[in-house]
């Protein structure tokens, strides 16, 4: 197992390298550049700008220089934001995005499992239908509808929660709506997945044996059912994290959270090459690591799987 872990970890590096290379060249294919603006700069000023950012070097040299800097964890200056560099924005934004995203996934996981298990145990009851209806809403309604709807109800009308802003000014309350919004879709999927999976396991032989032995329901659930029913949930966690990371863009914009998601989008529109590369590298690394962790957990949960 440990050999497997080491091999996988090392394998992340070439993957990341390929992602960086492809991204570096593809973003330069898009028309326009970092210095396009409606008020055009004169050719001389454009030359000056390009010189300042080393864009007048041959492309391969720019690529090599960039790679060398990345290895030293220097993601370069932003082409658009002139007072701070990319490392600063990532250092500022990433923890904030991870707090919101991490909490959202945690909440979705815990509540989703609870909802799914109870739905399965009380199949076809009022509770089951209610929980699954909420799940359908979570899957079908987009985040940019859920977010403003929550904001309208809880902040504007009821005044219970602040409209928008971050915890450094407003305290932890500022997290409630963004996390709730972001948690809803994964909650929905996890609830449905765990419900289906628990239902299936409840009908299996070893559970019937456990019940026949006279074990109470809680014991059956926690000792025998839970581990097995987690499998589909765990394999969903990889895509869930991806969805949460991208969903955070919308949530960060709506609730004014100084996170990385906004840079991810804006840098593309601004053709801020270094910022694009920085956010792509960070997100890719995160996803690769998360997927790897999920694989390891999967191996732990299912004794039938062994990694070599």
């Amino acid at each position, binding site marked *: 197992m440990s050999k497997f872990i080491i091999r996988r970890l090392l394998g992340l590096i070439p993957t990341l390298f390929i992602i960086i290379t492809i991204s570096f060249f593809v973003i330069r294919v*898009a*028309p*326009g*550049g970092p210095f*396009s*603006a*409606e*008020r*055009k*700069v*004169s050719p*001389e*000023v454009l*030359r*000056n*700008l390009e*010189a*300042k950012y080393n864009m007048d070097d041959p492309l391969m040299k720019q690529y090599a220089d960039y790679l060398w800097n990345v290895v030293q964890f220097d993601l370069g200056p932003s082409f*658009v*934001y*002139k*007072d*701070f560099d990319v490392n*600063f*924005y990532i250092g*500022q*934004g990433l923890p904030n995005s991870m707090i919101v995203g991490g909490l959202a996934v945690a909440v979705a996981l815990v509540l989703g499992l*609870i909802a799914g298990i*109870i739905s399965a145990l009380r199949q076809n009851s009022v*509770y089951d239908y209610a929980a699954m209806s909420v799940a359908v809403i979570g899957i079908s309604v987009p985040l940019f509808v859920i977010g*403003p709807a929550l*904001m*309208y109800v809880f*902040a*504007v009308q009821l*005044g*219970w*929660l*602040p*409209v*928008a*802003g*971050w915890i*450094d*000014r*407003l*305290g*932890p*309350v500022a997290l409630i709506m963004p996390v709730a919004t972001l948690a809803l879709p994964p909650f929905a999927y996890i609830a449905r997945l765990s419900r289906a999976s628990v239902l299936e396991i409840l009908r299996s032989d070893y559970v019937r044996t456990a019940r026949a032995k006279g074990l109470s329901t809680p014991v059956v659930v926690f000792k025998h059912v839970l581990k097995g029913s987690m499998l589909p949930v765990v394999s969903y966690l990889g895509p869930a994290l991806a969805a949460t990371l991208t969903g955070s863009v919308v949530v960060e*914009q*709506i*609730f*004014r959270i*100084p*996170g990385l998601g*906004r840079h991810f989008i*804006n840098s593309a*529109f*601004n*053709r801020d090459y270094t910022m694009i590369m920085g956010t792509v590298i960070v997100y890719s690394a995160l996803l690769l690591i998360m997927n790897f962790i999920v694989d390891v957990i999967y191996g732990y949960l299912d004794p039938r799987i062994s990694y070599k």
Partner: protein
Amino acid sequence: MMKKLLLMLLMAFVAVAVFAEGAQETTEEAEEVVFRLNNGTEPESLDPALISGVPENQIYMGLFEGLVVPDPETLQAKPGIAERWEMSADGLTYTFYLRDDAVWSDGVEITAQTVVDSWLRFLNPETAADYTYLMVDEAMVAGAGDYNSGEAGPEAVQIRAVDEKTFQVTLDRPRAFFVDMLNHYAFAVHPLHVIEEYGDAWTRPGTIVSNGPFVLDTWVPQDRIELVKNPTYWDAENVELDRVILYPIDDQNTALNLFQDGQIDWLKEVAPARLDEMKMDPTHVANPAFITYYYEFNNSVEPLDDMRVRKAMMMSIDRQELVTRVTRGDQFPAYGVTPPLPGVYDAVEGFEEDYDAARELLADAGYPGGEGFPELTILYNTSEGHKNIAEYVQQKWNDELGISVQIENQEWGTYLDSRDNGDFEIARGGWQGDYVDPLSFVGLFTADSPFNSGDWTSEEFTALLTEAETMVGEARLAKMREAEMVLMEQAGVMPFYYYLTTNWINTDEWGGWYPTIQDMHPLKDIYRK
């Protein structure tokens, strides 16, 4: 067990809600007067040499002060660090006398040499400032272009410190609007003593030094910028606000919610979907803006090189219907390219909408009833508003002229590229005048203007403009009108409407804020009533 769980969740929620009241941003204490606004997007920089947008300008007006400041109502020049100024008889040389108490927030004195060094830093090719065209092409500071393009050294620029408090600048040609222009950040003073020491990091809180009515207190990128009153400012006793908070807010809906929740005092824009409702709000303030919406024709593409075709297309739109039914923002139909400057320059009535005359022109050009007319494409940058207008135009041209056009949208960066490269047939454009003079619009369409994407040229137009440059006052403006009439008669560009600026602010609570044509609202003059 379920009931216990539900009860616990409910108690937890209530507990949090209770804490919410306490943890929510406290309203200002009775002493401190705080003014909050939504300021578009995160600023690209606080360095006056490196900025180029409206949000950056709003911050600039709080932190820095140049030779002059704009009057909050008329935007005309009032003394800034210069107490008074003189113009030479030939209109080419201006002399500014700086006040004695002009200092940086760290106490360092501002001298005429500071102004010289700042303008040189701005023009220095290594600084790579965006807005140099304002100093080089519009203000026409002598020698500025040569230095900025690298053809000459800084000594070529005709600016100098006559003595410690006297600054002099010479222009290539008389510029009637020169002094009013100087409130722009292109002409700012920079704290070179700080920049030398800290380099690119000089704008951070703690190191930044400024000379305006406010200084930087807090900067949390993507969250807020807080300015506090500058005690060393020469006019500090007239600055009423203690603190200004600028929030970059990307989401228009969130901004509106914050405004309605009382979290911001001045809202600059509202999503189109909520516009009808918010126009009725008592805090709504609207006024004509110095911005025009138009379409450009690519004169290298047949048959758009034929003036009759362009005119026909121009004359077969109902602009009143457009602003009433399509854009619905109460904009002003435009028959010229320069928006009206009240008391200074009336809008030009360059053409009339006349469907019959348009059809005749098209027939003359060889396409009676639209027969044989090629299918052209209207290019616009992705936006619901632009799409609606393009569809309307498409419909109108089909109905009235019998020609059919396609409409195509491109993402902003791609669209700019296409326009720059002449990769279009008809393209949407919009322009905001940088300075309050018709030249800021009419000058866009000269043969060598980098903004003349359609490459329209006319000797008559150029001759009139050249003549106007040597004139002053009313005579000059009359000559500019002639030139603009030619632009319209030859359909060099197709205007649609002049914008309306909209803002929301409770003017019963806040004074010193006035609607202005450039939608500029200096923070210095705002006070709580």
